[in-house]
């Protein structure tokens, strides 16, 4: 994996999680799988870094966690987005779009 995508990861993991749970409550593994599928695993996020991010986001009030029963009949913790999380997602998305547009204008076409 390229170093550049690791650096990108830092700021993008949280918006991606928000994007994921914005579609409905998900448990951690489901979020991890969605990240792999949706991004074509370009970011190659380690599962280990996902959970501290989730806890941090819960502490910040962007997502909320509830315990329920998974499709396998096991107890599992599911995250859903909060109103503050939605606002955050909108803001970060807009920011990202501005950023990407600005950088693209400079870097492209190669």
């Amino acid at each position, binding site marked *: 994996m390229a170093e550049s995508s690791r650096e990108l990861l830092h700021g993008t993991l949280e918006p991606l999680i928000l994007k994921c749970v914005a579609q409905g409550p998900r448990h951690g593994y*489901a979020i991890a799988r969605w990240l792999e*599928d949706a991004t074509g695993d370009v970011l190659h996020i380690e599962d*280990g*870094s996902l959970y501290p991010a989730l806890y941090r986001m819960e502490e910040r009030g962007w997502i909320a966690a509830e*315990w329920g029963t998974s499709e396998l009949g096991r107890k599992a913790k599911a995250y859903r987005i909060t109103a503050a999380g939605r606002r955050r997602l909108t803001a970060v998305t807009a920011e990202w779009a501005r950023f990407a547009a600005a950088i693209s204008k400079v870097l492209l076409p190669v």
Partner: protein
Amino acid sequence: MDFRTRFPLRLWRPNLDDEVDAELDFHLEMRTRELMRAGVPEADARREAVARFGDLRRARRECRAIGQQREQRMRSAQYLSELWQDAAFALRQMIATPAFTLIAVATLALGIGATTAIFSVVNAVVLRPLPVPDPGRLVSVTEVWRDADQGAVSAGNFVDMMGEQSAFDAATASTTVSFTLARDEGAERVAGVKATGGFFKTYGVNAAFGRVFGPEDDEPGQDQVVVLSHKYWIRQFGGETGVLGKQITLDARPYTIIGVMPASFDFTSDAEDLWVPIAFTRERKAMHDEHYLSVAARLKDGVTIEQAQQQLDRIAADLRTRFPKDDADRGFRVSTMMSAFIGDYGHRLIVLLGAVGFVLLIACANVSNLLLARGAARSRELAVRSALGAGQGRLVRQLFTESVVLGLVSALAGIALAWVCIGILIARAPQGVPRLDQAGIDGTALAFAVVLAVVCSIVFGLVPAWRTARADINSTLKEGIRGAGSRGAKDVVRSILIGAEVALALVLLVGAGLLIRSAIATARVAPGFDPQGVYSARFSLPQAKYPQPDVLLQAVTAIQEGVSNVPGVRRAAVASNVPGAGTFSNGLVPEGEAPVLANVRQSMARFVSPGYFETMGIPILKGRDFTPADRAGSQLVMIVNQSLAKRLWPNADPIGRRVLGSAPESDNPAKTAKIVIGIVPDLHFAGPAAPTDLEFYQPLAQLDQTGWGWTRRTLFVVARTTADPSSLGPPVRRVISDVDPGIPLFSERTMEQRMAATLDTSRFNTMLLVVLGIIGLILAAVGIYGVVSYFASQQTSEIGIRMALGASRASVLKLVVWQAAVPVLTGVLAGAACAAFASRVLASQLIGVRPTDPATFATVAAVLLVVALCAALLPARRAAGLSPTIALQS
């Protein structure tokens, strides 16, 4: 996608560590399963899942840390929101039950307000350190004579002590002086201090501007410099900075203003106006027998008071051998400056603070009783809360919050009350309590009131909260209000509370009673003279203009004659001292005894003009009064009081016998021997509460230079009049200014005022303690009334049955009243025991009555029992007045 699943909502939430573990395990499990579904063997799949996870332990650690932080924040947020809920609920409850709230708040506010008021006075007068750097190192040095603290130090002893000591960084001897300030409008008195050069270094305070004087100014010839106090500078010069270098004339000598002190150096509002160097002459430095100086010193770093005392003890021993005549039996005493500054007001105020604390405790007991009664009424509400899931701890917390809210609301009312009380205290207090006018509701007093309120809420809220929360929910809900709680145990608590109230009130009343008895005893004391109809005032004769005895006497005689001729004046006289004002002493030896210290009768000296005894209404018991013929050059004469006569010649007629003064005249005893020509009664000179002394009188006309020095040329003019003595002021002032407009007249009082002033402090103390005692009594009575009412209401049906079965009204009365009798009687006994112990703190303030005076104890106990009986009878009569049918129905 197949992972997307809706989760049903559950209340279950595991603890944090399990939660993190379960979540991560679930993740690994899901990953393993997915890999297995893709055909990977289970063992490999598990390995792969762990590998893809990365650092499992770190993730777990981070998650737990973040989770913990979150939980803590939520806990405190929840606590705060519950606290807020409870407080809001408590306030709503208080508004919903206005009668309860009013009584509880008024009771507590009374206690908190009175305590805060006394505390702020204690804080201002006693606790607040002196406003100088490092005040703890400031000490006062006094002379002791035969183990009795004499206060003042002689110049010789001070100079010699300073030469040998090494315990102090700096020390100073000073004396307060009433200067005559020459002004265009006429002479004025200013309160000044003459001090040695180390004065400002000792206090560690420098001038606000200009400079202070130091040792170089403290030499004869260099000493005509003056430092002004801030308040005097403002009063006299309007705070103008151009005063430096200006001259003022004090006692007919010009002084140059060299500096002004900062406002903080005005320790008290009646402190001195200015300071000048004392400039001891060489002769003065060698004088060891004139004790008139106050000595302050600053301890060196690391030197304790005890070490300083030991060093001064050694120096005193040395002085005793060097000056056997002057310093025999003399020593030094070192004490903290604060104790010297406050005097015995500290003790009196601490006693008052204790008394007011008792009132507060009684108030707390009353509110505790009120809360208990309300707790019983509220037990259903609490049982319902408990049934709905509120834990016991949660309920206790709610009740506690209610107590604290009640306490804080009362503190607000109490602070307002304290503010009023402090105003009254300052206005009514006797003069001369140092720094009293600095008392007020400041930050310290506010903090004190709030802390007091919280502590009180815990005290009065504890028992009711515990009781109420412990009540059995099931029985409460089943039985309703009437069966609430376990009655027997609660009654014990109530009984203890009223017992304690009675005991506390009894201690207060015994204190008040003792002071009243003492005041009555004091009022019966015959002062030895007749103060009615006598005017008195002080005047001083500046040394520069009146240097010699002959000119002094001329002025004195002119003033006496002038005042005698004022219409309405029957007799007038001049004296060095009058009762109720200062005094000085000298040692006397009867002729025939060796002039050694063992034979010396230390006696109070009064120098008077002819006619003094008649003016003051002092009968001459034997012999004659002074006459104008007793003048300088003629035979020296003396009049002694009865006690001194007895001490000088226990078995012989003193008239015509000769007395020698101790130093310095005894160098030539034959020439200075005085013949006793009369005997007068003992006077209560320092006021009716003070003991009598050995006293002797000499005619002013026969005073030598030394004797005039003792008077500091400041004398009293007294006049007996048939008119109102306070109306003599203007004519006497005219007489004085006719004699010499440069003579200031001040401190004008009738003799009755002077004698009353000596009792100001004790009268004020008595009044305060009586007020506190009455408040305590009323609160205790209210408490007894409340508890007996409660008992009676609990027994309504029992009373109904008894009455239906033929019990008489009287027997019902007895039944109800008797319930209060046991705790009240126990309280009286316990209170009497405490009072016997506590009244010792009043011992120093009692005249003619012992701290354990049985009559006072018996009277107070009787008063308390009667009041308690009345308080119990009111509700009992109501209970006995019920008709049996109504009683049974309820």
